[in-house]
């Protein structure tokens, strides 16, 4: 580059640098949204705890202290202990792991399924579209919790039996860990409940963007397909998807808690907030702290994801930017 070119930076170029990028603008708008910023903190904290929880907890989540069962909150046990003398605070921190892995994995699975099904429906149209729409309608017409219970009741026993057989056949100890059955069932149920939402969203996005006039106008200007995809279709489809994923993460965590509450959740040694809430509920009059800790965590996280989703929605939608 010659010096002339360097010094010839016009105001346009500066303006260009500051406003050309949607994502940069979106981040700025998100940062200006108080609720969304407030919401980011617990969410970041949640992921941090999920990753490093085991190094932070004062006690192991399984460590039982029979001398201190159902102890009230104290300097030793900040949030008291449960029936088995396990430290509630430690268990809440471990519970973040369950919540995050449930949120991430089930959202990832349902998003992938939704992306594939939604894109197929949107691109191919015709019979494929009708089939996908029908499938999503059928799935969505069933109550989520009922679906989870049915899946658990019908598949758990046969799956465990199959694992046992596999163990006998292969002597591979992997097949001894029945927690995998739980995980598969819970993630499977969550994905089954959530994929139709993503599929319909993506289908709608593709249908509407493909027929948008600005795509036609860009093609009429001779823009190559790749550029139209990256500059026109994807940015316009991303906003609603990011919002949906954000809300879906919170939703998945709440659903998993509801599953646990109903006894069809993750039956792991690792604590789940839903399980802790349902256990704590039995004694809430005498030992409310067993309930309060996980319930507050759950509420904070859910609200945070909702606020973040709202903030993202506003930040990513240029129509809301005002003149």
């Amino acid at each position: 580059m010659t010096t002339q070119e360097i010094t010839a930076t016009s105001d346009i170029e500066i303006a260009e640098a500051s406003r050309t990028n949607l994502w940069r603008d979106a981040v700025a708008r998100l940062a200006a949204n108080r609720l969304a910023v407030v919401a980011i903190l617990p969410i970041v904290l949640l992921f941090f705890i999920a990753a490093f929880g085991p190094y932070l907890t004062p006690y192991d989540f399984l460590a039982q202290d029979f001398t201190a069962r159902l102890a009230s909150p104290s300097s030793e046990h900040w949030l008291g202990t449960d029936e088995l003398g396990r430290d509630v605070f430690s268990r809440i921190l471990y519970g973040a792991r369950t919540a995050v892995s449930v949120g991430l994995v089930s959202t990832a699975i349902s998003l992938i399924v939704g992306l594939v099904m939604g894109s197929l429906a949107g691109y191919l149209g015709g019979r494929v579209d009708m089939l996908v729409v029908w499938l999503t309608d059928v799935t969505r017409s069933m109550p989520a919790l009922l679906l989870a219970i049915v899946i658990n009741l019908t598949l758990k026993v046969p799956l465990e039996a199959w694992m046992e057989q596999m163990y006998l056949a292969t002597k591979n100890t992997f097949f001894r860990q029945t927690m995998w059955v739980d995980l598969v069932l819970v993630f499977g149920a969550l994905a089954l409940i959530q994929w139709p939402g993503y599929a319909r969203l993506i289908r709608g996005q593709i249908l509407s963007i493909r027929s948008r006039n600005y795509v036609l106008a860009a093609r009429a200007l001779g823009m190559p397909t790749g550029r139209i995809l990256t500059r026109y279709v994807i940015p316009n489809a991303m906003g609603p998807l990011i919002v949906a994923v954000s809300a879906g993460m919170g939703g998945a965590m709440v659903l998993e808690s509801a599953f646990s509450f109903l006894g069809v959740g993750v039956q792991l040694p690792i604590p789940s907030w839903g399980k802790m809430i349902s256990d704590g509920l039995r004694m809430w009059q005498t030992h409310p702290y067993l309930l309060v800790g996980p319930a507050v965590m759950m509420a904070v996280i859910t609200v945070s994801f909702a606020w973040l989703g709202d903030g993202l929605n506003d930040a990513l939608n240029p129509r809301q930017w005002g003149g």
Partner: protein
Amino acid sequence: MSVLLDVQELQTRFRVRKGHVYAVNGVSFQLEEGETLAVVGESGCGKSVTMLSLVRLLPPAASIENGQVLLRGEDLLQIDQRQLRDVRGGQIGMIFQDPMTSLNPFINIGTQMAEPLIYHRGMSKKDALDRSAELLEMVGIPDGKARLREYPHQFSGGMRQRVMIAMSMSCEPAVLIADEPTTALDVTIQAQIVELVKELRDRSGVAVIWITHDLSVVAGIADRVIVMYAGYIVEEAPVDALFEDPRHPYTVGLMGALPSLGGETGTRLTTIGGSPPDLVDLPDFCPFHPRCPYAIDRCRTENPMLEPVAEASDRGHNAACWVDIRDVKVQTETDTAIAGG
């Protein structure tokens, strides 16, 4: 003047669940350098599909079955995708009906306007932005430089259409196709947009194809007019000849001067009763006959070809009609049917 665009026997149809929709049925016309050609006709008569076919911008269900689109002798229906992209925007610019949705809401005006310049003209981003600012001022948007930073939602409908015009003209195309560019706008804005295109045309010498429902716009802007019905060109004439001496009953109808079918409303002039046909078959009759007060038996069994009209007042006046409507005294309350000769 020499022929810039020569369209021959263009035929486009859509695949639908039950067979086909015949949207464009053997359309032929020429556009000369610098000429303004208006294309008129009711909704659904194939105006847009014809123009989209020229640069192969059709939806997936459509296919071009036949024809040639010769732009300075090169057949646009035969060139490869890469050459086609150079033609689009580079040699043929298009503007569309709905300016509110014709710009990408996620990209600011400057970046959006710069893209074709960078792509077709190989300009640097900076040059393209400087040029875009000039173009904005050229289409009547003051303070172009500052407005480059803004996003489409910060522009009104009329301004967005100005931006679209600036973009489609930015690479100095030989042809500008305007597909009902004013339909979605307020009346006062419509007039401004028409004036703007006229001004740009006169300055740059671009040939214009202007699609519209509105014959009053045609009189002010066009040199020549094509009237389309049911995927056919039914009349073609220099603009004065068309207004003074229309020969196709449908054209007469568009001018609001068609005697009513069956005569029950007497001599009162009406708009055309009925609606255009479905286009699910290629007709072996005149597609206008169910709505035509001049229809004769032959109209129901044979589809007329576009042919020079008798005793034309002007050269290049063609119509597709079995009847010379000047010979026919149309029905009034007192007349009985005279058609059938």
